């Protein structure tokens, strides 16, 4: 049952992925239209930031007298985008059902081995994406999020699948519920922060070469927020992730003390949790360091999430250590 629900969820994610991709394609072509329409006006020569503020996703403040820079280019309502979001919600519900069924079958929380963790982790990634959309429009990341989730779920169900099995004694603890769940949540936040940082870098590159010139490269970027906005958003998401990661690390230490008799022992997984923590601490400090704000700190966020993925895949599978709960 759980597997069927999961496969259905994956199918719907795949369709949502296509819808998001169509939306991105439409963004590219809409830029051509807008550019043509605006070319007769004087504003067009001033570059990318001036035209058609107030369209899609604009967040210009009402009474601000500051010039609205960096507002995304006008971009009408997109059917594909709305279909994408709706399908993502449907897929997420199926995914949730799969996860709950797995938990019921096992009679415990569904994140005790690598397959289950991948399933719950991706569920949380999508949840973070959907919840964030309630506050800020980040639907343009839909392709990235559904794509990432599809890859991870595919990997998990093909390579990591294990039958339901009871908890080994070492995992029989309330900390399994807390520690792993919080870890998965911060992974979800880091994933979204990663996506934003990548778009931020692309956007920044476009902004620095394309001022005054014709739109080059990925034209769809013109419909997205400015790199400053993306950076601020990525930062906000990453700091929440960082706080949860700090908690993960501490909860892990408390649990390690109970289960292994020491709160910190430089086990490979502990080492990588520490490395990730330090990278994101560096990211936060980089934003306050001259010359590091912007692109360089975005690279740190990208490296940070890469380390998270490395920690989940390579460290779990190939490194020796006490966190040997992949079930493989």
């Amino acid at each position, binding site marked *: 049952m759980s597997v069927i629900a999961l496969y259905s969820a994956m199918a719907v994610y795949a369709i949502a992925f296509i819808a998001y991709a169509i939306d991105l394609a439409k963004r590219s072509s809409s830029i051509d239209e807008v550019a043509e329409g605006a070319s007769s006006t004087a504003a067009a020569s001033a570059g990318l930031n001036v035209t058609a503020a107030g369209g899609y996703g604009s967040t210009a403040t009402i009474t601000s007298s500051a010039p609205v820079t960096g507002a995304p280019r006008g971009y009408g309502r997109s059917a594909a985008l709305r279909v994408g979001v709706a399908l993502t919600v449907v897929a997420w519900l199926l995914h949730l059902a799969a996860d709950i069924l797995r938990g019921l079958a096992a009679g415990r929380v569904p994140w005790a081995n690598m397959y289950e963790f991948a399933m719950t982790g991706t569920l949380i990634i999508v949840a973070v994406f959907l919840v964030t959309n309630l506050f800020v429009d980040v639907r343009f990341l839909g392709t990235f999020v559904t794509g990432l989730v599809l890859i991870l779920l595919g990997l998990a169900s093909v390579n990591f699948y294990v039958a339901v099995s009871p908890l080994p004694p070492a995992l029989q603890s309330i900390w399994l519920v807390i520690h792993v769940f919080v870890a998965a949540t911060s992974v979800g936040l880091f994933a979204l922060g990663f996506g934003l940082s990548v778009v931020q870098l692309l956007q920044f590159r476009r902004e620095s070469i394309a001022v005054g010139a014709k739109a080059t490269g990925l034209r769809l970027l013109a419909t997205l927020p400015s790199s400053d906005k993306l950076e601020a958003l990525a*930062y906000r998401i990453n700091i929440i992730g960082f706080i949860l990661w700090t*908690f993960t690390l501490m909860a892990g230490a408390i649990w390690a003390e109970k289960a292994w008799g020491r709160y910190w*022992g430089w086990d490979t997984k502990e080492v990588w949790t520490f490395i990730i923590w*330090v990278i994101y601490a*560096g990211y936060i*400090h980089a934003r306050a360091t*001259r010359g*590091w704000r912007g692109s360089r700190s975005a690279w740190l966020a990208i490296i940070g999430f890469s380390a998270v993925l490395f920690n989940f895949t390579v460290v779990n599978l190939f490194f020796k250590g006490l966190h040997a709960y992949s079930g493989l």
Partner: protein
Amino acid sequence: MTSSSDDTERPANDGPHEDGRGGAEERLRRPDDHIDAAASVDPSSGDTGSGGGSGSGGEITQPKLGFVGWLRWFWRQLTSMRTALFLLLLLAVAAVPGSLVPQRSSDPNGVTQYFRDNPDLAPFLDKLQAFDVYTSAWFSSIYILLFISLIGCVIPRTKHHFDALRAKPPRTPVRLGRLAGYTERDGVGSLDDAAEAARAQLRSAGYRVAVFEKPGEKSVSAERGYLRETGNLVFHSALVGILVTVGFGGGFGFAGQRVLVEGQTFVNTLGAFDSFNPGRFFDPDTLDPYSLTLTDMAVTYEQQNQKAFGQPIDYTATVQVTEQDGASSEQTIKVNEPLNTGGTNIYLLGNGYAPQITVRDPDGTVVFTDAIPFLPQDAQLTSIGVVKIPDGLAEQLGMIGLFYPTQGAQQPPYFSSYPDLEYPVLTLQVFEGDLGIDAGTPTSVFTLDTDSMTEIAGGKADAKALELMPGQTQELPNGLGTVTFEDAANPSGDAAPPVTEESDAAGTAGTDYSKSVLRFASLDIHHDPTQGWVLVFALLVLAGLVTSLFIPRRRVWVKVHDVGGGALRMEYAGLARGDDPGLDAAVAAVADRHSAGFTPDAAAVAEGDEAVAPPESPDARA
């Protein structure tokens, strides 16, 4: 560090300094902004304070730096944000090798294995301290430098913050137009009332306020969110606290291991540990000599779920603890539930089988009998153990035993098919010769050095390896004597092991092997008096982190101009000091609420009521 150099050097984690958003906003738009080299690299602009301001010109002759000057320069470099960031990233990189190469601290056997597998590379890596990364000179120097840098930053910032906490908010800027969230409103009313209303409103919203006055205008300067910097300082100080507690506090504890076979007793004294690692300052006399007897080591295996058949689902060690004063109680230890007694925590870290082996000489005299802990090798608990008989026989004898709790093969090679005792079989490879223990060199009880021994049963020897089930006895080759694998549930008279459940096993002996072999528990006994402190600091770290990242530090100004005829022009603006996405909205909210009291309608009502706000001396409270 002067506060001005502090500002330029280390705007820090959303620092409290002037160049928050206003200036940063410009810089943000060109993040490829070159490193502003002048401020930090030029040593002459150092701690002279007043002299540093314009010292970035290339032609300025650099004053000679004395030793102290260089020290200062070095200190400034070390405590700069960029160095801290560099050290932080270096720390992340330096931690990586420790996960690639086995570490002595967490995986000593892995290190031995690594030396065996890579005899050329390993000694070289060892020179680089690659097997002790986290205590190595290079790793330590990175984090020590990082923490010195951190302390060097936290102390001046604490002082700065302390001053800021007592200082009034700064004078209102002349022109607010360029600041964040700037907005203007028109209204009617008196200048004093409007200023007082703004003061009262901001003050009740948690701002510190100061009122400034100029001819024809009054302004309120307000600042809030001091807790952000407090949290930031708490976070960093608590990190130092953790490091110090772990570094020095660890020296007051100890960690020891002991393997206990069912029925055996451990007394908490130095000699009773199999291994003992005291901290530098630990005094062994402070050990509380309680005694602990392992009465039962119960293991439950999965039997319902065919796909997880044989997976362990519970380990429970039942122990009888007797305190020094004679009070005795039965306790249990589980994997996630350590036992706390006598100032120590006792953890159940492993378990396995301990076959009881008795060796007799040809006359039938017992020369050896003991329950030997066998180390589990796989999930089905195929286990290896070593028996050493130094005295009593014609030759010194060594045996390498393989124990299969449920032997599943028709003929060798044997394997275990289930971790519980269904069909237990013990095979023994026998060696005679020199055990190598007479010379006094320490040898492991779990390995047998066969270099100066000859194999007489099993392997390449003529005789087959001995094969025993519980209760069986076999002849040793060459007439050396006999070996008995004792049945713990049905002990032979002369080697009665201390088993409590004799009664229920007696009737079914021969077919039910479930109690035929004793189990052992591998216990870790730790004492760490500083653990609680580490937890306290960790919680402070978390609390400090949350406050320093989520509480916005911001300034808000309200400026009221008297434009004549009872009409007022009111300006509102804010300044973020650190990351503050909600600033514009906050300024707008202040403006809306404040200006609502001075619309023409509100003014009419106010005249009827006589007062909007108590007419107090506006700058009396700040």
